[in-house]
């Protein structure tokens, strides 16, 4: 803690270009420096000093220990109060803002917002119960439905283990049935494309072309990501580049951020060509998500692909909520809407 007088001297030093000499500055600094003998590397001297004042050192450490305990007790109490407050607020929001599986209602919730993310990304976590996969897939389906209803064209779902990628057809079924519970008959449903890096686009032949006037113009591209799309992708890229360089096909000087960006973006924007129909691979999405929603007790990226999030806004639903459950938050509609409101720089209010 620097005293005010010294602070003023220090500021004058910079402002008026009336530089203090090195010794003057050192004199100014002296009172604030810890005793060199306190430092761990001076073991011999420290030992002798602590021998001189063993009682004081002991008392000091005891006081610190005590303060640590007290602070954490009070902090814990405060946290619990804040958590219960937020839990109550959360419940109220959950009641006030309920979607009732009506796209119109969801659209109304986001109507007043200044901006909407073009590409929304979500971090979900697999729980530990037996039906964890079913719960996870249901969450993805719900999110897909909310995103389409609020007019977000691209949704990417990150789940660390990548279990979702192994059951794309089932997930597709689930999402379509969820959409039908929101939108009704298949002809009114938005078009859905589902894919993961290194996987072909999965979409069933849509029956909507029977009556184009009635069909829903909205569409949703659902992208599945896992931790292998993060650092592992860079490792693969480096391997390829190293091999090319060893063969003299590329020189290390050619590796620029633009090249890396193009290569890394390729993976998420251009899915692998499916064998049966070539035209299905026409997916163009914005590789950089605008908003990243973290459904968890605190903001941790947990291996999310690093390259594209440099300008992504992040919002953690559990930021202020309960971190006690430990497993990560349930995916609930009010959290989703709150994230969108936050992104638009708006405050959520009680009452629609």
């Amino acid at each position: 803690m620097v005293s005010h007088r010294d602070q003023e001297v220090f500021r004058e030093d910079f402002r008026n270009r009336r530089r203090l000499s090195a010794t003057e500055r050192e004199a100014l600094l002296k009172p604030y420096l810890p005793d060199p003998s306190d430092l761990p590397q001076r073991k011999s001297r420290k030992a002798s000093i602590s021998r001189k004042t063993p009682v004081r050192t002991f008392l000091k450490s005891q006081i610190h220990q005590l303060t640590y305990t007290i602070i954490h007790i009070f902090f814990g109490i405060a946290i619990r109060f804040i958590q219960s407050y937020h839990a109550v607020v959360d419940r109220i929001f959950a009641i006030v803002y309920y979607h009732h599986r009506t796209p119109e209602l969801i659209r109304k919730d986001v109507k007043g917002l200044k901006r909407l993310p073009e590409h929304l990304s979500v971090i979900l976590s697999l729980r530990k119960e037996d039906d964890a996969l079913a719960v996870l897939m249901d969450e993805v389906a719900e999110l897909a439905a909310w995103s389409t209803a609020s007019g977000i064209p691209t949704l990417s779902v990150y789940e660390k283990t990548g279990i979702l990628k192994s059951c794309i057809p089932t997930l597709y079924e689930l999402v379509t049935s969820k959409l039908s519970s929101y939108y009704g008959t298949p002809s009114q449903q938005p078009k859905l494309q589902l894919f993961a890096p290194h996987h072909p686009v999965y979409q069933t032949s849509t029956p909507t072309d029977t009556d184009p006037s009635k069909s829903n113009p909205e569409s949703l591209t659902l992208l599945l990501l896992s931790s292998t799309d993060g650092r592992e992708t860079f490792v693969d890229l480096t391997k390829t580049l190293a091999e090319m360089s060893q063969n003299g096909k590329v020189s290390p000087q050619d590796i620029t951020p633009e090249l890396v960006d193009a290569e890394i973006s390729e993976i998420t924007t251009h899915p692998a060509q499916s064998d049966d129909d070539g035209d299905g691979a026409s997916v163009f999405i914005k590789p950089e998500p605008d908003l990243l929603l973290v459904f968890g007790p605190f903001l941790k990226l947990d291996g999310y692909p690093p390259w594209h999030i440099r300008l992504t806004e992040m919002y953690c639903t559990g930021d202020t909520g309960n971190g006690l459950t430990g497993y990560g938050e349930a995916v609930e509609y009010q959290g989703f809407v709150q994230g969108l409101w936050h992104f638009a720089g708006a405050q959520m209010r009680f009452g629609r």
Partner: protein
Amino acid sequence: MATSMHLSRLRKWFLASPPIEYAISHLRELLVGALKQGPVPQHVAFVMDGNRRFARTHGIETVEGHNLGFEALARILEVCYKSGVKVVTIYAFSIENFKRSKFEVDALMEMAKVKLSQMAQHGDLLDSYGAKVRVLGRLDLLKPDVLEAVNRAVDMTSRNGDRVLNICFPYTSRDEITTAVRDTVSEYSRPLKPICSPSTGPRTPFSESHIALNIQAQRTEHNSDTESTSGSSEDGNGNTKQDRSRNKVYESGSSFSSSTTLHLGQQDGPGTKTSTPLTEGTDTDNPAFVSPETISRQTLTDHMLTKDNPPLDVLVRTSGVERLSDFMLWQCHEDTEIVFLNVMWPEFDLWHFIPVLLGWQRRISKSKQNPDAEGDFDGEGSVSAEEDDGIILRPDNKVKGM
């Protein structure tokens, strides 16, 4: 308006009065000492955002705002190092920031130069406290005079150990990742030095003609059992040249490795066999390389600018902007806790930082008590298992087996 000004002046006077100042400084010391009792993050990163906005809202010049920001930095560094944080990384200047007004860029550069050269003047003082300053980023974009100050400060403190201050000076994370990829690639595309068998090591000054004769004699008997001897000797060479033990010599594993590298290996194989040890000049046509398959996540991490630092534990960004803005993307996307605070950087102090630290300590001690509850730790385990799988290369074992 007038009353609030009077109030703030009164408050300032009150806080500046000696007894209060004394009490507050002792309170801070007590708090820091208390924080030290629990687990402390080893590596903390700060995005010092909000200097300009602070200056604008308080009606002072932008440059003055940056100065206040520097004071805040000094305050928070004191807290960090006293409480036991080993490495602090700060985002001082982005490559993108060169696009700002020339006046501001110049003022920032001037400030950096002055502070760094002042630091260098106190070399012995820094020595005794063991803080090491490092500047990360594209130093080639700096002006020569600033660069000189940077180099002086870095050299001065390079011998100090223990505590590290990383200043990301003209830095973006994408640039860092690209550089890491590029460095890895150029390292792997540097041909390995030809094998130096003990009899022909570079330290023994034998006559060249004599050696040439020896080769002739050796090659005739060598050809019979080339496979095993070259395999083992190359392996030894790989280990001594690169101190990373996982590295493997390309062609020794080529015949066993995956299909993508197979043809390459066959090309290389005969080339190195005919020109075994000593024909140094001629064997550049078919040089031996370290296999790219040995590149792992760790290899890339070792090429990042923060390679010797512990993993990033906490990242704090002030001013309420909830983006990373191209900072520490590689380092923070795994287990880092990211915190966005709604204060301007010049106002940032221990009081804002304490809740962050307490929350972190709470979470860490909870997950230590009960690793199953958090779900973080088994995840980590599986990652490391994966990594191990990637590192252990079957060709190596097979060669050794032979």
